[in-house]
């Protein structure tokens, strides 16, 4: 059992931030790693990348977008409620080293995953430029945190309601045109964003890492639900990832595999909504 000790809703209540008691995980987790959680006895296991950890208070930060039944159910929980199972830390940590200039690009809820990674690159002595984007101003998350975690923060919105009017890739292209010292781009967000971001950085020949979020079950390498094709080879995202060379990932396959249970997800969500009425 893991008690929720803090709750904040963001982005028009489409995103929720919990601080949850999980002292052993908080002590061990490194940027880029994730947990699997199961809300209750009948729940499914879903992977969530940690938005941060605090070993002194023994808590981990879970920041999630409400996309289906499990996340909708999670959002109904309040401070003092428990999450039945949290397993972690899982996956390989981000490989952090001082390499020079790094651009960290976060889209949508991907910003939450990007935040601890951005912070770690800065702490390791890199010059960190961060680009975060959202569809519209009210859906933007963690702007202040990302500002503090980077040397230079750029913000974009698809509708121009805040920051630069356009996509994160538009700003990224501009920076890559201006600076030739960029050693690494890290991109985390919706699959189409990562796909186009990688297309762009490939043009410029800049190494790019992405963090993938396929469907998982055990997340210890036992089931293969999370298999992704990277460089023509099948890899298990849960143990070989979640971060991969973005230029090698088969994004089209990933999107199709993420949509494998759309029908069932709809059934679950409808049942949940009906029960809430």
């Amino acid at each position, binding site marked *: 059992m893991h008690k929720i000790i803090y709750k904040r809703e963001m982005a028009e209540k489409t995103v929720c931030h919990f601080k949850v008691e999980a002292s*052993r*995980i908080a002590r*061990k987790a490194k940027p880029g790693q994730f947990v699997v959680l*199961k809300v209750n006895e*009948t*729940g*499914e*296991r879903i992977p969530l990348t940690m938005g941060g950890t605090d070993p002194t208070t023994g808590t981990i930060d879970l920041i999630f977008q409400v996309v289906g*039944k*499990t996340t909708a159910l999670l959002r109904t929980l309040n401070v003092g409620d428990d999450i*039945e*199972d*949290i*397993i*972690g*830390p*899982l996956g390989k940590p981000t490989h952090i080293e001082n390499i020079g200039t790094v651009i960290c690009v976060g889209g949508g809820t991907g910003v939450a995953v990007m935040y601890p990674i951005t912070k770690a690159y800065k702490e390791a002595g890199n010059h960190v430029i961060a680009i975060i984007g959202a569809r519209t101003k009210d859906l933007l998350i963690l702007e202040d945190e990302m500002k503090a975690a980077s040397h230079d923060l750029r913000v974009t919105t698809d509708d121009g309601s805040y920051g630069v009017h356009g996509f994160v890739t538009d700003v990224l292209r501009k920076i890559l045109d201006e600076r030739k010292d960029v050693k690494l781009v890290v991109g985390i967000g919706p699959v189409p964003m990562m796909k186009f971001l990688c297309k762009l950085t490939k043009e410029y020949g800049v190494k790019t890492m992405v963090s993938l979020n396929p469907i998982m*079950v*055990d997340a*210890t*390498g*036992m*089931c*293969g*639900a999370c*298999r992704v*094709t990277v460089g023509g080879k*099948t890899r298990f995202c849960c*143990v070989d990832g979640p971060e991969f060379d973005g230029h090698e990932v088969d994004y089209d*396959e990933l999107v*199709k*595999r993420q*949509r*494998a*249970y759309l029908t*069932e*997800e709809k*059934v*679950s969500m409808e*049942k949940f909504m009906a029960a809430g009425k």
Partner: protein
Amino acid sequence: MAEKEEKEKKPKVPRQKMPEQEPKARAKNFDEVPFGYTPELAQLEASRCLQCKKPKCIEGCPVEIDIPAFIKLISEGDFDGSARKLKERNSLPAICGRVCPQEDQCEKLCIVGKKDQPVAIGRLERFAADWERTKGTIIIPEKAPSTGKKVAVVGSGPAGLTLAGDLILKGHEVTIFEALHKPGGVLIYGIPEFRLPKAIVQAEVNYLERLGVKVECNCVIGRIETVDELLQEYNAVFLGLGAGLPQFLNIPGENFCGIYSANEYLTRSNLMKAYLFPKYDTPIARGKNVAVFGAGNVAMDSARTALRLGADTVRIIYRRSRDEMPARIEEVHHAEEEGVQFYLLTAPTKFLGDDNGWVTGVECLRMELGEPDDSGRRRPIPIKGSEFQLECDMAVVAIGAGANPLLPTTTPGLDLNKRGYIVADLETGKTSKPGVWAGGDIVTGSATVILAMGAGRKAANSIHDFLMNK
């Protein structure tokens, strides 16, 4: 004289069948297939045992249960006593009575089996254990005085549970670390409800907890703690990790949606209870036309699960012939009765899919058998030009499991063989790393529940010696 006695006692009653659900009915539900013996049937079957002076059956049992003794107690009507007799050697009789391959072990050597069908030892074991659990009195045995020594057990499958049960009785403090959210390992995530009800596994774990064993779920050793960190707190560590790495066919199209490893398919259904979706949240594809690759027990479990999830057609596709199928005869028999079809001497070459990335079929090749290979089985050879296509909207790859590298790669000093399994002494379970033992599938590769239990028992003895001589 003894010989004459045995001749006179030659059973007149035939081997008693275990009542079970009708194939048509059971192929639509997840309830256990056999109902088990009634007390009358059990006593009748027990009366068939010759009570041999030199029982052969015990030699066939990896944990050397005193088989004639527990059967005698059943024939006398002392069912609780029979269960206790079983538990002297086997801490999980309700499980072994269900999933042991008795036809290759105790029953294979039964003297009655020379002229008649052997005594149904497995069914009797199951009866006694079920009786004790549901109607009898479970007696908690006395533990040896505390030794103050601590043992960490990684993995709560049959090897870990057996070892934990043995060591707690010898007075040591035992903590089991399980990666999943429920203890039991393959007994929980792998073997389906219709073959091994999960309540039985839960009861066995509860029993160990009553003895004082601590069970910590959600602990992925190698991530939350390393083995070296465990060794700072515990005097000994046992690794009973299982063979938790799915093997795939490595043919084109294998990542189409609807193609599962058997591990994933069975974990969704058994551990996550996806067969009860949407009451339980985990979804599972309900294919109408299902292809299962492989012909071991796991393939049979997958095929029978697919039927229960509403498939119209389920095909087992296997590249060798019927004689080489590794599954237990009983499992093949049950699958056939329920309507599973067998495509033997057939090997898949590629999967076909639609625009949504969902599997629509599989291309296969016909095979013929050639000379025996390294495994002693005749090698399947493709017949040129024999390609044909089978439609399927779901597939399960059940061609075996390998060693999951997660823990071994985070444990320096632990020797592995070239296939990634942990090298351990088969008599003691000792590994190359001081203070670390291993047993079960992570040492031998995929085998049986009872062999893993046997390995757990041997390692328990070795760990006990180590702790007491320290």
